[in-house]
Every structure is written in C-alpha cells, then in structure tokens.
C-alpha cells in the first residue's frame, strides 16, 4: 500500500512559531536577549556618573545627537525606544500566554507539596512582573521626570542624585535590581537552551556566563545608589 501523500498546506513560518510552545519560547528568548544587550550598554553608561556631572550630562546629551547629521535630534534614541518597547511587549505577551498554558496543564495539584526548582527559576514570573512595574516607575522618574523631586530637564546627574536621596527611590531600585539579577540568572541560560545552544559539554560555560552577567549587571546598577547614599557621588 502506498503511503498517503500529504496534501494539507503547512501554515506560514510566523504562524508556526507563534502557535507552538517551543516557538513562543524562542520569541521570549530573542526578545530577552535584546533587552539583556541593552541593559549591558545602559549599565556601562550609568557608570559615567562616577566621573562627574559634566561627563554624565555630556554623555546624556551625546545620546540625543547620536547618528547626526544623518539622523535628526533624538531619532536614534526613539529608534532604540521603539525596538525595546517591541521586545518588552513580545516578551510579556509570550510569558503570559505560556504561563496560562502551564497552569492549565496541571489542574489538580499534588497533596504532598515540595519545593520544585531553584529560587531564581521559581521567581521568574513574579520577578518579571516586578521588573515590568519597575520600568514604568523608572520612566516616570528619570525619563518623563513626572515623579522626580528635582525634575531638572537636561540634567540627569542632578535628577539621579535626587532619586537616590529618597528612601523609596533607593528601595524600589535595589529590589528591582535584585529581581533583575535573578531573572537574568535563569533567563540567559534558558534562552540558550531554547535557541538550541545548550549541550552537556557547554552547560558549565553557559551557567557561568549567566551567573556572571547577572552579577555584573546587579553590581553595576546598584553601585550608583550605593555611591549616592555613601556620599561618593554628590
């Protein structure tokens, strides 16, 4: 007997990726890596605060002239912002849909409870929510200056000092950065697995990279509020 020839049409590549749990995870992995790349650059930029107000404010001004004369004032910044917004939305929507699927897959819980997974793994979902809320706060604080007490447009150095002179500014920031470290620790390694880069041989390297990135990002970002609090930056 001859095998039946497949006559049904395969859905488009985009459809296949978005409809599959494996595909949606690859969307999460890529959008996560985009945001991670941005964070490394952002953190390095933040460290300029240790070299004085002129250097920090000059750097902030330079970001607005990036790409000129080809790009108009602030265009480069807006291109980055649109890209990041797309990454955040793709990451969050995929995470929400995948989490819904995961919860539906175990309708009846076990009576004998025990801890499953490491702390970083278990806190991925709520840690992600915390980071989402922090991004909103962070933009209101230092981009739109809505909630910033100093709110001096064009002078980020002074605004950052004002944020980290309040107890809530410091608390929100440090808690969010701890969440970020944990999120990156499991997220980076997971992204590598999802994109097929993981193997038994490479596992140690990938885990080392994930922990290293998490630690460097946490230390780099948190060094700013710590420096303001201890008076190193004033």
């Amino acid at each position, binding site marked *: 007997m001859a095998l039946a020839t497949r006559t049904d049409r395969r859905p488009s590549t985009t459809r296949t990726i978005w409809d599959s*749990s494996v595909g949606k995870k690859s969307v999460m992995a890529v959008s996560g890596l985009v945001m991670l790349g941005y964070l490394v650059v952002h953190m390095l930029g933040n460290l300029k605060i240790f070299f004085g107000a002129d250097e920090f404010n000059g750097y902030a001004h330079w970001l607005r002239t990036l790409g000129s004369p080809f790009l108009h004032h602030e265009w480069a910044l807006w291109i980055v912002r649109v890209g990041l917004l797309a990454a955040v939305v793709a990451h969050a929507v995929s995470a929400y849909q995948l989490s819904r699927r995961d919860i*539906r897959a175990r309708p009846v819980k076990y009576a*004998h409870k*025990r801890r499953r997974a490491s702390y970083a793994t278990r806190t991925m979902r709520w840690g992600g929510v915390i980071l989402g809320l922090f991004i909103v706060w962070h933009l209101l604080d230092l981009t739109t200056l809505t909630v910033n007490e100093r709110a001096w447009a064009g002078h980020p150095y002074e605004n950052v000092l004002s944020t980290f002179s309040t107890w809530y500014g410091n608390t929100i920031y440090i808690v969010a950065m701890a969440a970020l470290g944990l999120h990156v620790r499991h997220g980076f*390694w997971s992204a590598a697995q999802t*994109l*097929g880069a993981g193997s038994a041989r490479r596992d140690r390297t990938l885990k080392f990279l994930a922990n290293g990135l998490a630690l460097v990002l946490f230390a780099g970002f948190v060094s700013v509020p710590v420096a303001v609090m201890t008076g190193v930056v004033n």
Partner: protein
Amino acid sequence: MKLTLRVWRQRGADAPGHMASYEVDGISEDMSFLEMLDTLNEDLILRGEDPVAFDHDCREGICGACSLVINGDAHGPERTTTCQLHMRSFDDGDTIDVEPWRAAAFPVVKDLVVDRGSFDRIIQAGGYITAPTGAAPEAHATAVPKADADFAFEHAECIGCGACVAACPNGSAMLFTSAKVNHLNVLPQGSPERETRVLDMVARMDEEGFGGCTLTGECATACPKGIPLPSIAAMNKEWLRAVRKGPR
C-alpha cells in the same frame, strides 16, 4: 515494617477523589513498593473493600507501565521505576503519600491509574521511520558514526512512563518528546522525516494540553532512565532548524 499510607482514591474519571489513610503491617524491607501495595490490596479484599487500582506490568523496570508520585516524587525517592523501588528506602513507622501522575493530559481513570494515551498520540504524530519492507537490509549498508549511535541509544532508553510530566511544575512533556525526536532524528534511518517528525510531534504535544518548558530540570532528575536535560535543547535546535528549512 509498619507503615501508614495516604493513597489517592477515586472511583472513576469524573468521580471526586480524596486521600484515604491505610495502615499496613508486616512489610519486609526487601519488598518492592508494588509488592507492598499488593499486601495492602490483599488486606482490602479480605475486608471486602475495593482494592487500590495502580498500573504495573513487567515489574523489571523496563516497560514504563508503573507510575505513582510517592511523597511528592515521581517513582519515589530513588532514581528508578516504582516497581524497582524497595521498601528499604523507607523507615518503620513512616507515613507515605501515594498519588497518581497529575496532568491535564493524563486524566485519572481510577485511583492511581491515569490514561497516558496522549503519549501514544505524540508517537503516532512522528515517532516512527519509513522502513522499507522485504528482506532485512545488509547491516553495514548504512554506516552510523559511533557518537550518533550513542546519542540515539541514550534517548532510545525512554520507556514513556510519564515521570517527566508528573515531576514538571508545568506538566510539560518536553523531555519525553525530545527523547523520541532525538532518538530518530540523529540516525540515517530517521532522516527522511527529520523535519516533519519534530514539527508534528511538538504540535501534537501542544494539542494534548501539556505545559511548556521552563527549564526547571525536575524532569531529568525524576527520569528513571536518565534522559538528560540537554535533550530538550537538542530538540529545540531540531525544531528551529525544521521551521527554517520548511518540511520536505
């Protein structure tokens, strides 16, 4: 040994269930966990009660029929199947919780028996090769590199018991599906369906209502056959490759 068992009892698929307590006495530490349950059932039958239904077949650790989540661990505290778990792993006077695999894709049939038909349907979606019929081919006609043969064999060890799904906090079948996909995709015999196999099996896995993978690692820890966690990454790679190339 004298033990207290708290066992999930459920009369049928749609009936409500509960954890029931039983005392068992005269248990030898050389008994397997299933023999201990046999002792309980003999007792229940003599008392005129309904014996506890549980899945079992070869009792040699190779068929994948037995299941049971014991004190929250799929197949119990040792890395083996429940039939090969011995009572010496427990202490006299212990209270042991016995529950069925919990997953939407593994509905309870009765007591501790679940329907694992969803695994069969994942296999039907692509867990086969298009074998030529007729006389057996000459053994050396198709050369398989040693590394590939080892990789295929490591994944062929999967007995499809479902412990990975039971242990996963998301009720995901990624470890099972990856074992089956990797086993055949690496071999020349499996290469004609290399792309369709991974696409169809993953699609079927999603349709059956299994959760997604969050790389928790619980599956590989619970697997009695030691299917490693990197299998999942290997399948993800195959899936992305198939999406890029498009099925033939």
